[in-house]
């Protein structure tokens, strides 16, 4: 009788473990495959507030480098203003241009949580739905792309970092416009991997890689990094190149969230194209 009792106790432990473990794995799988605003995320109020408090404290320590970065960006913008160009051709004059319609707008945000040393990294931003941020928006800085917004709460949002195993970003070589796919193999947070460059393309160490502009998430021509090494892996018939990232993910503080103003139109058009096929 006692043995039987012991047996039941041991079995209940095992079955309870199995039940809870199934629940955990289900949560994990659901979380990976769907965009969900579920309550257990760092974008929720409790975790968001805790990260916000710690980020406020830490931001004092990075004031110097943030200021330096801002000064650099200001110089870059000044370079582009009309005032810094000398007009040489008197035949050309400027007028209000209607050729250009705004396609992307940007929201500034502060990073309140970041990681680089896990296989799948995430960030948390201090802006949320209230500030116009929605899932699937891109996150960039002047030096590169940072990630894609995954979950949004009222005041915070969580971002899948570029340093994540699910990241696939469409990029191209700046010098000859050949397209490739950017992934992260998880070894070093300063490097990513560029795949699917056909073997007839001449690669050189130091070539610049930028975003392709074909994605609905990121604008084109955003700097990503430079090629530091390349090879054709055994069994492949395309180049695999190592890209040294221009952005240091360990020192991020402020980012820009990209809103594509024409996204709905594009989505609608492409949806129609698929359904009428």
């Amino acid at each position, binding site marked *: 009788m006692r043995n039987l009792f012991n047996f039941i106790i041991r079995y209940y432990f*095992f079955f*309870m473990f199995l039940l*809870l473990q199934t629940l955990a794995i289900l949560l994990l799988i659901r979380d990976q495959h769907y965009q969900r605003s579920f309550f257990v995320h760092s974008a929720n109020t409790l*975790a968001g507030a805790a990260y916000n408090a710690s980020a406020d404290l830490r931001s004092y320590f990075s004031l110097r480098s943030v200021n330096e970065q801002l000064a650099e960006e200001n110089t870059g913008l000044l370079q582009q203003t009309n005032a810094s160009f000398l007009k040489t051709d008197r035949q050309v004059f400027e007028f209000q241009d209607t050729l250009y319609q705004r396609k992307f707008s940007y929201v500034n945000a502060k990073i309140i949580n970041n990681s680089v040393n896990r296989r799948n990294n*995430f960030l948390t931003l201090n802006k949320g739905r209230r500030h116009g941020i929605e899932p699937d928006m891109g996150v960039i800085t002047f030096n590169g792309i940072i990630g894609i917004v995954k979950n949004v709460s009222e005041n915070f949002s*969580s971002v899948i970092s570029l340093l994540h195993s699910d990241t696939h970003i469409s990029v191209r070589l700046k010098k000859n416009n050949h397209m490739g796919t950017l992934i992260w193999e*998880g070894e*070093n947070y300063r490097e990513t991997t560029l795949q699917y460059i056909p073997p007839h393309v001449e690669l050189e160490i130091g070539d610049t890689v930028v975003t392709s502009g074909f994605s609905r998430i990121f604008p084109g021509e955003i700097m990503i990094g430079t090629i530091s090494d390349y090879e054709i892996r055994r069994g492949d018939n395309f180049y695999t190149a190592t890209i040294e990232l221009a952005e240091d993910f360990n020192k991020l503080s402020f980012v820009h969230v990209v809103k594509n103003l024409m996204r709905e139109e594009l989505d609608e058009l492409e949806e129609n194209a698929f359904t009428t096929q």
Partner: protein
Amino acid sequence: MTPGYIRHLGYFAVLLLVQVLILNNVRLGGYINPYVYVLFVLLLPVDIKGWALLLSAFFGGLAIDMFMDTLGMHTAATLFMAFCRPGVIRMISVKADFEKGTIPSISNMSLGWIMIYSLLLIFLHHTFLFFLEIFSFSEFWQTLSRITLSSLFTFILVILGYLFLDNSLSKKR
């Protein structure tokens, strides 16, 4: 019995804060990420009921996941570790029964016992966690080196935690 629960909740809250506010911001060579929060499972009384052990691990892991944006991952790993715990204790203990409500600590057991106990469970937790994170065996050696290095680091921190808490953990409950 109630003060015991509150005390363990306190340990968990402190470990959670240490984990997400300090350790997650420490970068050690890009490979190492210590998960010292597992100490809260190690600290539960030896004779804790199975259901209480599993539920503590489940909700503790869920809270950690909430802060790390890894829904389910730490929950699963911590559960697995909690599931292995009674077996590990049976395996390494000479005498089968402990005084009621004994918390595994250096002065209640011995330094050697605690070291083997934590190292085994930390390694099991990290192995489960890191392979779940990758979800494949394709980067096997890289993952294995991550597991080994992170386990060692967590182990050192856990032992430091044990030394720090030792006075408050001895016999009295």
